[in-house]
Protein backbone atom coordinates (compact mmCIF):
# COMPACT_ATOMS: atom_id res chain seq x y z
CA UNK A 1 0.00 0.00 0.00
CA UNK A 2 2.76 2.40 0.99
CA UNK A 3 4.75 1.59 -2.11
CA UNK A 4 1.72 2.22 -4.25
CA UNK A 5 1.06 5.55 -2.53
CA UNK A 6 4.65 6.65 -2.97
CA UNK A 7 4.62 5.68 -6.62
CA UNK A 8 1.48 7.69 -7.24
CA UNK A 9 3.03 10.61 -5.43
CA UNK A 10 6.18 10.42 -7.52
CA UNK A 11 4.07 10.47 -10.69
CA UNK A 12 2.31 13.60 -9.47
CA UNK A 13 5.46 15.67 -9.18
CA UNK A 14 6.15 16.08 -12.92
CA UNK A 15 2.46 16.87 -13.36
CA UNK A 16 2.82 19.64 -10.82
CA UNK A 17 5.72 21.14 -12.73
CA UNK A 18 3.68 20.71 -15.90
CA UNK A 19 0.82 22.65 -14.34
CA UNK A 20 3.03 25.65 -13.66
CA UNK A 21 4.51 25.38 -17.13
CA UNK A 22 1.16 25.28 -18.92
CA UNK A 23 -0.24 28.10 -16.77
CA UNK A 24 2.76 30.21 -17.64
CA UNK A 25 2.92 29.39 -21.32
CA UNK A 26 -0.80 29.81 -21.92
CA UNK A 27 -0.71 33.33 -20.60
CA UNK A 28 2.57 34.44 -22.09
CA UNK A 29 2.17 33.09 -25.58
CA UNK A 30 -1.25 34.64 -26.09
CA UNK A 31 -0.88 37.55 -28.53
CA UNK A 32 -2.45 40.20 -26.30
CA UNK A 33 -0.29 41.71 -23.62
CA UNK A 34 -1.59 42.40 -20.11
CA UNK A 35 -0.56 46.03 -20.30
CA UNK A 36 -2.51 46.73 -23.47
CA UNK A 37 -5.80 47.66 -21.95
CA UNK A 38 -8.12 49.76 -24.03
CA UNK A 39 -7.11 52.56 -26.38
CA UNK A 40 -4.23 53.88 -24.34
CA UNK A 41 -2.04 54.18 -27.44
CA UNK A 42 -2.92 57.80 -28.14
CA UNK A 43 -2.17 59.08 -24.69
CA UNK A 44 1.56 59.66 -24.02
CA UNK A 45 1.17 59.38 -20.25
CA UNK A 46 -0.54 56.01 -20.72
CA UNK A 47 2.47 54.92 -22.72
CA UNK A 48 4.82 55.86 -19.93
CA UNK A 49 2.65 54.12 -17.38
CA UNK A 50 2.68 51.05 -19.58
CA UNK A 51 6.44 51.02 -19.79
CA UNK A 52 6.63 51.38 -16.03
CA UNK A 53 4.32 48.40 -15.69
CA UNK A 54 6.42 46.35 -18.09
CA UNK A 55 9.50 47.16 -16.04
CA UNK A 56 7.84 46.52 -12.70
CA UNK A 57 6.63 43.08 -13.70
CA UNK A 58 9.76 42.30 -15.70
CA UNK A 59 7.73 41.60 -18.82
CA UNK A 60 10.64 42.76 -20.97
CA UNK A 61 12.89 39.89 -19.86
CA UNK A 62 13.15 36.76 -22.00
CA UNK A 63 10.43 34.20 -21.36
CA UNK A 64 12.55 31.47 -19.81
CA UNK A 65 13.99 33.95 -17.35
CA UNK A 66 10.51 35.14 -16.42
CA UNK A 67 9.37 31.56 -15.97
CA UNK A 68 12.35 30.70 -13.77
CA UNK A 69 11.82 33.68 -11.52
CA UNK A 70 8.12 33.08 -11.31
CA UNK A 71 8.70 29.44 -10.42
CA UNK A 72 11.17 30.37 -7.69
CA UNK A 73 8.62 32.72 -6.20
CA UNK A 74 5.91 30.06 -6.46
CA UNK A 75 8.01 27.68 -4.38
CA UNK A 76 7.96 30.31 -1.64
CA UNK A 77 4.18 30.58 -2.18
CA UNK A 78 4.58 34.08 -3.53
CA UNK A 79 2.04 34.57 -6.29
CA UNK A 80 2.74 38.24 -6.80
CA UNK A 81 0.31 41.10 -6.58
CA UNK A 82 -2.92 41.61 -8.45
CA UNK A 83 -2.99 44.10 -11.34
CA UNK A 84 -6.35 45.34 -10.10
CA UNK A 85 -6.39 48.80 -8.51
CA UNK A 86 -6.34 47.33 -4.99
CA UNK A 87 -2.97 45.68 -5.78
CA UNK A 88 -3.40 43.04 -3.10
CA UNK A 89 -1.28 39.89 -3.00
CA UNK A 90 -2.82 37.20 -5.19
CA UNK A 91 -2.56 34.62 -2.44
CA UNK A 92 -4.76 36.73 -0.13
CA UNK A 93 -7.34 37.17 -2.84
CA UNK A 94 -7.45 33.48 -3.58
CA UNK A 95 -7.27 32.55 0.07
CA UNK A 96 -10.50 34.31 0.95
CA UNK A 97 -12.36 32.81 -2.01
CA UNK A 98 -11.07 29.27 -2.05
CA UNK A 99 -13.04 28.07 1.01
CA UNK A 100 -16.28 29.29 -0.58
CA UNK A 101 -15.71 27.28 -3.76
CA UNK A 102 -14.49 24.25 -1.83
CA UNK A 103 -17.48 24.22 0.50
CA UNK A 104 -19.88 24.66 -2.42
CA UNK A 105 -18.31 21.82 -4.37
CA UNK A 106 -18.18 19.57 -1.32
CA UNK A 107 -21.87 20.10 -0.60
CA UNK A 108 -22.64 19.51 -4.26
CA UNK A 109 -20.71 16.28 -4.27
CA UNK A 110 -22.41 14.99 -1.13
CA UNK A 111 -25.85 15.81 -2.52
CA UNK A 112 -25.05 14.31 -5.90
CA UNK A 113 -23.77 11.08 -4.40
CA UNK A 114 -26.55 10.71 -1.86
CA UNK A 115 -29.17 11.11 -4.59
CA UNK A 116 -27.44 9.47 -7.54
CA UNK A 117 -26.66 6.20 -5.80
CA UNK A 118 -30.22 5.32 -4.78
CA UNK A 119 -31.58 6.57 -8.12
CA UNK A 120 -29.04 4.51 -10.04
CA UNK A 121 -29.65 1.40 -7.97
CA UNK A 122 -33.42 1.68 -8.23
CA UNK A 123 -33.45 2.19 -11.98
CA UNK A 124 -30.96 -0.64 -12.49
CA UNK A 125 -32.87 -3.15 -10.37
CA UNK A 126 -36.08 -2.14 -12.11
CA UNK A 127 -34.69 -1.84 -15.60
CA UNK A 128 -37.28 -0.64 -18.16
CA UNK A 129 -39.81 0.15 -15.42
CA UNK A 130 -41.65 3.48 -15.34
CA UNK A 131 -39.16 4.78 -12.79
CA UNK A 132 -36.28 3.78 -15.03
CA UNK A 133 -37.85 5.50 -18.04
CA UNK A 134 -38.47 8.69 -16.11
CA UNK A 135 -34.93 8.83 -14.80
CA UNK A 136 -33.53 8.14 -18.26
CA UNK A 137 -35.49 11.08 -19.67
CA UNK A 138 -34.30 13.19 -16.74
CA UNK A 139 -30.71 12.15 -17.44
CA UNK A 140 -30.85 13.21 -21.07
CA UNK A 141 -32.50 16.51 -20.26
CA UNK A 142 -29.98 17.02 -17.47
CA UNK A 143 -27.13 16.48 -19.89
CA UNK A 144 -28.51 18.99 -22.34
CA UNK A 145 -29.54 21.78 -20.00
CA UNK A 146 -27.09 24.69 -19.98
CA UNK A 147 -26.50 25.41 -16.30
CA UNK A 148 -26.62 29.17 -16.73
CA UNK A 149 -29.99 28.91 -18.41
CA UNK A 150 -31.36 26.78 -15.59
CA UNK A 151 -29.98 29.37 -13.19
CA UNK A 152 -31.77 32.16 -15.06
CA UNK A 153 -35.07 30.28 -15.10
CA UNK A 154 -34.88 29.52 -11.38
CA UNK A 155 -34.02 33.15 -10.71
CA UNK A 156 -37.10 34.26 -12.64
CA UNK A 157 -39.32 31.75 -10.88
CA UNK A 158 -38.13 31.76 -7.26
CA UNK A 159 -36.39 35.09 -7.12
CA UNK A 160 -38.45 37.45 -9.23
CA UNK A 161 -41.92 35.89 -9.55
CA UNK A 162 -42.41 34.14 -6.22
CA UNK A 163 -39.83 36.12 -4.24
CA UNK A 164 -39.08 33.08 -2.06
CA UNK A 165 -35.33 32.93 -2.34
CA UNK A 166 -32.53 35.47 -2.64
CA UNK A 167 -30.78 35.37 -6.00
CA UNK A 168 -27.35 36.80 -5.38
CA UNK A 169 -24.48 36.82 -2.94
CA UNK A 170 -24.14 34.76 0.20
CA UNK A 171 -25.69 37.12 2.76
CA UNK A 172 -28.51 39.62 2.89
CA UNK A 173 -27.88 43.33 3.33
CA UNK A 174 -29.31 43.25 6.84
CA UNK A 175 -27.16 40.28 7.88
CA UNK A 176 -25.70 42.03 10.92
CA UNK A 177 -29.11 42.78 12.38
CA UNK A 178 -30.36 39.20 12.24
CA UNK A 179 -30.35 36.79 15.16
CA UNK A 180 -27.98 33.83 15.07
CA UNK A 181 -30.52 31.36 13.68
CA UNK A 182 -31.83 33.86 11.20
CA UNK A 183 -28.27 34.36 10.01
CA UNK A 184 -27.87 30.61 9.45
CA UNK A 185 -31.15 30.44 7.58
CA UNK A 186 -30.20 33.49 5.55
CA UNK A 187 -26.92 31.85 4.53
CA UNK A 188 -28.63 28.56 3.67
CA UNK A 189 -31.33 30.22 1.62
CA UNK A 190 -28.64 31.95 -0.43
CA UNK A 191 -27.09 28.58 -1.15
CA UNK A 192 -30.21 26.73 -2.27
CA UNK A 193 -30.43 28.02 -5.83
CA UNK A 194 -26.72 27.88 -6.76
CA UNK A 195 -26.30 24.42 -5.33
CA UNK A 196 -29.51 23.25 -6.91
CA UNK A 197 -28.28 24.39 -10.31
CA UNK A 198 -24.81 22.96 -9.87
CA UNK A 199 -26.04 19.55 -8.72
CA UNK A 200 -28.57 19.16 -11.52
CA UNK A 201 -26.14 18.36 -14.33
CA UNK A 202 -23.83 16.26 -12.18
CA UNK A 203 -26.73 14.31 -10.78
CA UNK A 204 -27.79 13.25 -14.26
CA UNK A 205 -24.31 11.96 -15.05
CA UNK A 206 -23.74 10.12 -11.82
CA UNK A 207 -27.13 8.43 -11.64
CA UNK A 208 -26.59 7.23 -15.20
CA UNK A 209 -23.19 5.91 -14.32
CA UNK A 210 -24.44 4.25 -11.16
CA UNK A 211 -27.15 2.54 -13.19
CA UNK A 212 -24.66 1.20 -15.73
CA UNK A 213 -22.32 -0.02 -13.04
CA UNK A 214 -25.12 -1.69 -11.13
CA UNK A 215 -26.48 -3.37 -14.27
CA UNK A 216 -23.08 -4.92 -14.86
CA UNK A 217 -22.61 -6.08 -11.29
CA UNK A 218 -26.06 -7.61 -10.96
CA UNK A 219 -25.18 -10.06 -13.75
CA UNK A 220 -22.05 -11.29 -11.96
CA UNK A 221 -21.76 -14.78 -10.56
CA UNK A 222 -21.27 -13.72 -6.98
CA UNK A 223 -24.61 -11.98 -7.01
CA UNK A 224 -26.22 -15.17 -8.29
CA UNK A 225 -24.42 -17.06 -5.51
CA UNK A 226 -25.71 -14.66 -2.91
CA UNK A 227 -29.22 -15.15 -4.20
CA UNK A 228 -28.75 -18.91 -4.29
CA UNK A 229 -27.71 -18.86 -0.67
CA UNK A 230 -31.18 -17.60 0.02
CA UNK A 231 -30.19 -14.14 1.16
CA UNK A 232 -32.90 -11.54 1.14
CA UNK A 233 -32.95 -9.45 -2.02
CA UNK A 234 -32.27 -6.38 0.09
CA UNK A 235 -29.02 -7.85 1.36
CA UNK A 236 -28.00 -9.08 -2.08
CA UNK A 237 -28.44 -5.69 -3.68
CA UNK A 238 -27.62 -3.47 -0.74
CA UNK A 239 -24.50 -5.31 0.35
CA UNK A 240 -23.01 -7.64 -2.24
CA UNK A 241 -23.89 -5.76 -5.39
CA UNK A 242 -23.79 -2.17 -4.20
CA UNK A 243 -20.28 -2.36 -2.79
CA UNK A 244 -18.85 -3.56 -6.05
CA UNK A 245 -20.92 -1.18 -8.13
CA UNK A 246 -19.64 1.75 -6.09
CA UNK A 247 -16.03 1.11 -7.05
CA UNK A 248 -16.02 2.72 -10.50
CA UNK A 249 -17.99 5.63 -9.07
CA UNK A 250 -14.99 6.59 -6.95
CA UNK A 251 -12.84 6.86 -10.07
CA UNK A 252 -15.47 8.81 -11.96
CA UNK A 253 -15.80 11.15 -9.02
CA UNK A 254 -12.10 11.93 -9.22
CA UNK A 255 -12.20 12.34 -12.98
CA UNK A 256 -15.21 14.61 -13.00
CA UNK A 257 -13.80 16.94 -10.38
CA UNK A 258 -12.39 19.46 -12.89
CA UNK A 259 -15.81 19.44 -14.56
CA UNK A 260 -17.55 20.18 -11.29
CA UNK A 261 -15.15 22.95 -10.36
CA UNK A 262 -15.26 24.37 -13.88
CA UNK A 263 -19.03 24.41 -13.65
CA UNK A 264 -18.86 26.57 -10.58
CA UNK A 265 -17.43 29.40 -12.70
CA UNK A 266 -20.74 30.18 -14.33
CA UNK A 267 -22.85 29.46 -11.28
CA UNK A 268 -20.72 31.71 -9.07
CA UNK A 269 -20.80 34.44 -11.70
CA UNK A 270 -24.58 34.39 -12.07
CA UNK A 271 -25.38 34.21 -8.37
CA UNK A 272 -22.62 36.69 -7.44
CA UNK A 273 -20.96 34.25 -5.05
CA UNK A 274 -17.48 35.42 -4.07
CA UNK A 275 -15.61 32.22 -4.99
CA UNK A 276 -12.74 31.20 -7.23
CA UNK A 277 -14.90 31.07 -10.34
CA UNK A 278 -16.11 34.62 -9.95
CA UNK A 279 -12.56 35.78 -9.29
CA UNK A 280 -11.47 34.04 -12.46
CA UNK A 281 -14.09 35.77 -14.61
CA UNK A 282 -13.27 39.16 -13.12
CA UNK A 283 -9.57 38.56 -13.67
CA UNK A 284 -10.26 37.56 -17.26
CA UNK A 285 -12.15 40.78 -17.90
CA UNK A 286 -9.45 42.87 -16.26
CA UNK A 287 -6.60 40.89 -17.84
CA UNK A 288 -5.25 40.44 -14.35
CA UNK A 289 -2.21 38.31 -15.17
CA UNK A 290 -1.00 37.30 -11.70
CA UNK A 291 -4.48 36.40 -10.51
CA UNK A 292 -5.19 34.33 -13.63
CA UNK A 293 -1.93 32.42 -13.32
CA UNK A 294 -2.30 31.93 -9.58
CA UNK A 295 -5.86 30.75 -10.01
CA UNK A 296 -4.93 28.26 -12.72
CA UNK A 297 -2.07 26.84 -10.69
CA UNK A 298 -4.05 26.51 -7.49
CA UNK A 299 -7.23 25.09 -8.99
CA UNK A 300 -5.39 22.50 -11.06
CA UNK A 301 -3.10 21.56 -8.19
CA UNK A 302 -6.14 20.99 -6.02
CA UNK A 303 -7.64 18.83 -8.74
CA UNK A 304 -4.42 16.86 -8.90
CA UNK A 305 -4.43 16.33 -5.15
CA UNK A 306 -8.07 15.29 -5.20
CA UNK A 307 -7.41 12.82 -8.01
CA UNK A 308 -4.53 11.41 -6.02
CA UNK A 309 -6.72 11.00 -2.95
CA UNK A 310 -9.42 9.33 -5.04
CA UNK A 311 -6.85 6.92 -6.44
CA UNK A 312 -5.51 6.10 -3.00
CA UNK A 313 -8.99 5.68 -1.57
CA UNK A 314 -9.81 3.42 -4.48
CA UNK A 315 -6.80 1.23 -3.95
CA UNK A 316 -7.49 1.09 -0.22
CA UNK A 317 -10.99 -0.21 -0.91
CA UNK A 318 -10.07 -2.52 -3.76
CA UNK A 319 -6.92 -4.58 -3.30
CA UNK A 320 -7.06 -5.70 -6.94
CA UNK A 321 -5.86 -2.27 -8.04
CA UNK A 322 -2.69 -2.40 -5.98
CA UNK A 323 -1.76 -5.85 -7.20
CA UNK A 324 -2.70 -5.02 -10.78
CA UNK A 325 -0.63 -1.85 -10.73
CA UNK A 326 2.41 -3.74 -9.52
CA UNK A 327 2.04 -6.38 -12.18
CA UNK A 328 1.52 -3.94 -15.01
CA UNK A 329 4.55 -1.83 -14.41
Amino acid at each position, binding site marked *: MLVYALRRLALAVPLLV*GITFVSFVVLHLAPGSPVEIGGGDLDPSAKEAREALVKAFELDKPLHEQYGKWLLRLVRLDFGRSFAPDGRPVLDKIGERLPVTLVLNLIEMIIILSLAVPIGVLSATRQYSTFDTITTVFVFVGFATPDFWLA*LLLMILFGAQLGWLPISGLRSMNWEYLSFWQQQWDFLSHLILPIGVATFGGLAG*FSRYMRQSMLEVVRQDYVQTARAKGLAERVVIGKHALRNAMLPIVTILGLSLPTLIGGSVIVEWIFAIPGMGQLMVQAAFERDYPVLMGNLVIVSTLTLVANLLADLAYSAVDPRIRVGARRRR
Partner: protein
Amino acid sequence: MVACLAALAILAPRIAPWDPNRPDVKKILDPPSARHVLGTDQLGRDVLARMLYGSRVSLAVGFVSVGIATVIGLVLGAAAGYRGGLLDAAIMRLVDLMLVFPRFFLLLAVLAFLTPSIWTIMVVIGLTGWMGVARLVRAEFLALREREFVLWSQSIGASEFRIVWRHILPNAMAPVLVAMTLGIPAAILTESGLSFLGLGVQPPHATWGQILNEGKDAIELAWWLSVYPGLAILVTVLSYNLLGEGIRDALDPRLRQSGRRFVTRRA
Protein backbone atom coordinates in the same frame (compact mmCIF):
# COMPACT_ATOMS: atom_id res chain seq x y z
CA MET B 1 -33.92 16.47 -35.60
CA VAL B 2 -30.27 17.12 -36.26
CA ALA B 3 -30.92 17.53 -39.96
CA CYS B 4 -33.80 19.93 -39.27
CA LEU B 5 -31.60 22.07 -37.06
CA ALA B 6 -28.84 22.13 -39.64
CA ALA B 7 -31.32 23.09 -42.35
CA LEU B 8 -32.65 25.92 -40.20
CA ALA B 9 -29.13 27.20 -39.69
CA ILE B 10 -28.19 27.02 -43.36
CA LEU B 11 -31.43 28.61 -44.51
CA ALA B 12 -31.41 31.27 -41.80
CA PRO B 13 -30.91 34.22 -44.17
CA ARG B 14 -33.83 33.05 -46.30
CA ILE B 15 -36.37 32.22 -43.64
CA ALA B 16 -35.57 34.81 -41.00
CA PRO B 17 -38.56 37.16 -40.91
CA TRP B 18 -36.46 40.21 -40.00
CA ASP B 19 -32.91 41.45 -40.21
CA PRO B 20 -31.31 40.14 -37.00
CA ASN B 21 -29.30 43.33 -36.45
CA ARG B 22 -31.90 45.94 -37.37
CA PRO B 23 -32.91 47.87 -34.30
CA ASP B 24 -36.35 49.42 -34.02
CA VAL B 25 -36.86 51.97 -31.28
CA LYS B 26 -40.61 51.70 -31.50
CA LYS B 27 -40.60 48.04 -30.61
CA ILE B 28 -38.26 47.71 -27.65
CA LEU B 29 -38.90 44.59 -25.57
CA ASP B 30 -42.13 43.71 -27.35
CA PRO B 31 -43.60 40.45 -26.07
CA PRO B 32 -44.14 37.63 -28.58
CA SER B 33 -46.78 38.57 -31.12
CA ALA B 34 -47.85 37.67 -34.63
CA ARG B 35 -45.35 40.08 -36.14
CA HIS B 36 -42.45 39.14 -33.89
CA VAL B 37 -43.16 35.53 -33.05
CA LEU B 38 -40.64 35.35 -30.20
CA GLY B 39 -40.73 39.03 -29.27
CA THR B 40 -38.01 41.65 -29.51
CA ASP B 41 -34.98 42.60 -27.39
CA GLN B 42 -33.74 45.83 -25.79
CA LEU B 43 -32.90 47.34 -29.17
CA GLY B 44 -36.09 46.21 -30.79
CA ARG B 45 -34.40 43.43 -32.75
CA ASP B 46 -36.40 40.34 -33.63
CA VAL B 47 -35.51 37.45 -31.31
CA LEU B 48 -36.51 34.70 -33.74
CA ALA B 49 -34.26 36.13 -36.46
CA ARG B 50 -31.41 36.51 -34.00
CA MET B 51 -31.85 32.95 -32.81
CA LEU B 52 -31.86 31.60 -36.36
CA TYR B 53 -28.60 33.40 -37.05
CA GLY B 54 -27.31 32.32 -33.67
CA SER B 55 -27.81 28.68 -34.59
CA ARG B 56 -25.35 29.18 -37.45
CA VAL B 57 -22.68 30.32 -35.03
CA SER B 58 -23.39 27.57 -32.51
CA LEU B 59 -23.34 24.78 -35.06
CA ALA B 60 -20.26 26.17 -36.80
CA VAL B 61 -18.40 26.42 -33.51
CA GLY B 62 -19.53 22.93 -32.58
CA PHE B 63 -18.39 21.34 -35.84
CA VAL B 64 -15.13 23.19 -36.35
CA SER B 65 -13.90 22.92 -32.77
CA VAL B 66 -14.73 19.23 -32.65
CA GLY B 67 -12.95 18.85 -35.98
CA ILE B 68 -9.83 20.45 -34.55
CA ALA B 69 -10.02 18.39 -31.38
CA THR B 70 -10.51 15.19 -33.37
CA VAL B 71 -7.52 15.80 -35.64
CA ILE B 72 -5.23 16.51 -32.68
CA GLY B 73 -6.63 13.57 -30.76
CA LEU B 74 -6.29 11.22 -33.74
CA VAL B 75 -2.69 12.16 -34.48
CA LEU B 76 -1.49 12.05 -30.87
CA GLY B 77 -3.57 9.00 -29.97
CA ALA B 78 -2.40 7.09 -33.04
CA ALA B 79 1.23 7.98 -32.43
CA ALA B 80 1.01 6.96 -28.79
CA GLY B 81 -0.86 3.75 -29.46
CA TYR B 82 1.12 2.58 -32.47
CA ARG B 83 4.64 3.53 -31.45
CA GLY B 84 4.27 2.91 -27.72
CA GLY B 85 7.29 3.29 -25.50
CA LEU B 86 8.64 6.69 -24.58
CA LEU B 87 6.48 8.58 -27.06
CA ASP B 88 3.38 6.91 -25.63
CA ALA B 89 4.41 7.79 -22.08
CA ALA B 90 5.11 11.39 -23.03
CA ILE B 91 1.81 11.88 -24.84
CA MET B 92 -0.19 10.23 -22.11
CA ARG B 93 1.41 12.43 -19.44
CA LEU B 94 0.46 15.42 -21.59
CA VAL B 95 -3.12 14.16 -21.66
CA ASP B 96 -3.08 13.71 -17.87
CA LEU B 97 -1.72 17.20 -17.51
CA MET B 98 -4.38 18.79 -19.70
CA LEU B 99 -7.10 16.88 -17.87
CA VAL B 100 -6.07 18.35 -14.52
CA PHE B 101 -7.07 21.84 -15.62
CA PRO B 102 -10.74 22.62 -15.21
CA ARG B 103 -11.57 23.45 -18.81
CA PHE B 104 -13.46 26.62 -18.09
CA PHE B 105 -10.63 28.07 -16.07
CA LEU B 106 -8.18 27.36 -18.85
CA LEU B 107 -10.53 28.85 -21.46
CA LEU B 108 -11.02 32.00 -19.42
CA ALA B 109 -7.28 32.43 -18.95
CA VAL B 110 -6.64 32.14 -22.67
CA LEU B 111 -9.58 34.25 -23.79
CA ALA B 112 -8.60 37.08 -21.46
CA PHE B 113 -5.73 37.92 -23.81
CA LEU B 114 -7.23 37.15 -27.20
CA THR B 115 -9.50 39.33 -29.22
CA PRO B 116 -12.58 37.16 -29.14
CA SER B 117 -13.93 36.18 -32.53
CA ILE B 118 -15.73 33.12 -33.81
CA TRP B 119 -12.43 31.69 -35.00
CA THR B 120 -10.53 32.10 -31.75
CA ILE B 121 -13.42 30.52 -29.88
CA MET B 122 -13.41 27.54 -32.25
CA VAL B 123 -9.66 27.05 -31.99
CA VAL B 124 -9.53 27.48 -28.25
CA ILE B 125 -12.39 25.08 -27.59
CA GLY B 126 -10.77 22.60 -29.97
CA LEU B 127 -7.38 22.88 -28.32
CA THR B 128 -8.82 22.16 -24.89
CA GLY B 129 -11.01 19.26 -25.96
CA TRP B 130 -8.84 16.66 -27.68
CA MET B 131 -7.81 14.56 -24.68
CA GLY B 132 -10.78 12.23 -24.71
CA VAL B 133 -10.32 11.41 -28.39
CA ALA B 134 -6.58 10.84 -27.91
CA ARG B 135 -7.26 8.33 -25.13
CA LEU B 136 -9.89 6.51 -27.17
CA VAL B 137 -7.71 6.29 -30.26
CA ARG B 138 -4.71 5.13 -28.27
CA ALA B 139 -6.74 2.36 -26.63
CA GLU B 140 -8.04 1.21 -30.02
CA PHE B 141 -4.56 1.29 -31.55
CA LEU B 142 -3.06 -0.66 -28.68
CA ALA B 143 -5.58 -3.40 -29.24
CA LEU B 144 -5.48 -3.34 -33.04
CA ARG B 145 -1.75 -3.28 -33.55
CA GLU B 146 -1.46 -6.84 -32.26
CA ARG B 147 -4.14 -8.16 -34.57
CA GLU B 148 -3.29 -10.54 -37.40
CA PHE B 149 -4.15 -8.23 -40.28
CA VAL B 150 -1.75 -5.61 -38.97
CA LEU B 151 1.03 -8.11 -38.33
CA TRP B 152 0.42 -9.43 -41.82
CA SER B 153 0.78 -6.04 -43.48
CA GLN B 154 3.89 -5.37 -41.43
CA SER B 155 5.36 -8.67 -42.61
CA ILE B 156 4.92 -7.80 -46.27
CA GLY B 157 6.71 -4.51 -45.67
CA ALA B 158 3.90 -1.99 -45.91
CA SER B 159 4.98 1.47 -44.82
CA GLU B 160 4.12 2.60 -41.35
CA PHE B 161 1.94 5.40 -42.64
CA ARG B 162 0.02 3.02 -44.84
CA ILE B 163 -0.57 0.57 -42.02
CA VAL B 164 -1.79 3.27 -39.69
CA TRP B 165 -3.85 5.12 -42.28
CA ARG B 166 -5.34 2.30 -44.32
CA HIS B 167 -5.50 -0.62 -41.93
CA ILE B 168 -5.75 0.48 -38.33
CA LEU B 169 -7.48 3.83 -38.53
CA PRO B 170 -10.65 2.66 -40.30
CA ASN B 171 -11.09 0.02 -37.64
CA ALA B 172 -10.59 2.52 -34.86
CA MET B 173 -13.08 5.07 -36.19
CA ALA B 174 -16.26 3.78 -34.56
CA PRO B 175 -15.66 5.13 -31.06
CA VAL B 176 -14.14 8.30 -32.51
CA LEU B 177 -17.30 8.96 -34.49
CA VAL B 178 -19.35 8.57 -31.33
CA ALA B 179 -17.00 10.83 -29.41
CA MET B 180 -17.30 13.42 -32.18
CA THR B 181 -21.08 13.35 -32.18
CA LEU B 182 -21.10 13.76 -28.42
CA GLY B 183 -18.35 16.38 -28.57
CA ILE B 184 -20.42 18.74 -30.71
CA PRO B 185 -23.10 19.38 -28.07
CA ALA B 186 -20.39 19.74 -25.42
CA ALA B 187 -18.68 22.38 -27.56
CA ILE B 188 -22.00 24.15 -28.15
CA LEU B 189 -22.63 24.24 -24.40
CA THR B 190 -19.14 25.59 -23.81
CA GLU B 191 -19.48 28.27 -26.48
CA SER B 192 -22.85 29.42 -25.20
CA GLY B 193 -21.46 29.51 -21.67
CA LEU B 194 -18.54 31.67 -22.77
CA SER B 195 -20.77 33.95 -24.82
CA PHE B 196 -23.09 34.21 -21.87
CA LEU B 197 -20.21 35.43 -19.72
CA GLY B 198 -19.42 37.96 -22.45
CA LEU B 199 -16.08 36.38 -23.27
CA GLY B 200 -17.24 34.41 -26.27
CA VAL B 201 -18.39 35.54 -29.68
CA GLN B 202 -18.80 39.31 -29.51
CA PRO B 203 -21.78 41.45 -30.51
CA PRO B 204 -23.24 42.30 -32.94
CA HIS B 205 -22.96 38.61 -33.92
CA ALA B 206 -26.04 36.95 -32.54
CA THR B 207 -25.41 33.75 -30.60
CA TRP B 208 -27.67 31.96 -28.15
CA GLY B 209 -25.40 32.65 -25.22
CA GLN B 210 -25.17 36.30 -26.26
CA ILE B 211 -28.95 36.72 -26.36
CA LEU B 212 -29.20 35.12 -22.91
CA ASN B 213 -26.50 37.44 -21.63
CA GLU B 214 -28.35 40.50 -22.89
CA GLY B 215 -31.66 39.11 -21.73
CA LYS B 216 -30.33 38.65 -18.20
CA ASP B 217 -30.51 42.39 -17.60
CA ALA B 218 -34.15 42.52 -18.57
CA ILE B 219 -35.05 39.29 -16.85
CA GLU B 220 -38.01 40.72 -14.95
CA LEU B 221 -39.39 42.56 -17.97
CA ALA B 222 -38.85 40.15 -20.80
CA TRP B 223 -38.94 36.43 -20.01
CA TRP B 224 -38.90 35.54 -23.72
CA LEU B 225 -35.32 36.75 -24.04
CA SER B 226 -34.22 34.23 -21.44
CA VAL B 227 -36.47 31.27 -22.17
CA TYR B 228 -36.26 30.68 -25.92
CA PRO B 229 -32.50 30.74 -26.60
CA GLY B 230 -31.92 28.37 -23.68
CA LEU B 231 -34.60 26.09 -25.02
CA ALA B 232 -32.85 26.16 -28.40
CA ILE B 233 -29.57 25.10 -26.78
CA LEU B 234 -31.34 22.36 -24.84
CA VAL B 235 -33.06 20.94 -27.91
CA THR B 236 -29.90 21.09 -30.04
CA VAL B 237 -27.70 19.47 -27.42
CA LEU B 238 -30.33 16.87 -26.65
CA SER B 239 -30.74 15.84 -30.27
CA TYR B 240 -26.98 15.51 -30.81
CA ASN B 241 -26.66 13.48 -27.63
CA LEU B 242 -29.44 11.16 -28.75
CA LEU B 243 -27.84 10.86 -32.18
CA GLY B 244 -24.54 9.99 -30.54
CA GLU B 245 -26.20 7.34 -28.38
CA GLY B 246 -27.89 5.96 -31.47
CA ILE B 247 -24.64 5.75 -33.43
CA ARG B 248 -22.97 4.14 -30.44
CA ASP B 249 -25.58 1.43 -30.22
CA ALA B 250 -25.67 0.87 -33.95
CA LEU B 251 -21.92 0.70 -34.51
CA ASP B 252 -20.82 -1.33 -31.59
CA PRO B 253 -22.92 -2.85 -28.87
CA ARG B 254 -19.86 -3.27 -26.67
CA LEU B 255 -19.64 0.48 -26.25
CA ARG B 256 -23.01 0.68 -24.58
CA GLN B 257 -21.45 0.19 -21.21
CA SER B 258 -19.06 3.08 -21.58
CA GLY B 259 -19.50 6.01 -19.26
CA ARG B 260 -17.15 8.25 -21.16
CA ARG B 261 -19.93 10.55 -22.19
CA PHE B 262 -20.13 11.91 -18.70
CA VAL B 263 -16.47 12.70 -18.43
CA THR B 264 -16.31 14.63 -21.67
CA ARG B 265 -19.58 16.34 -21.01
CA ARG B 266 -19.11 19.94 -20.05
CA ALA B 267 -16.48 22.55 -19.98
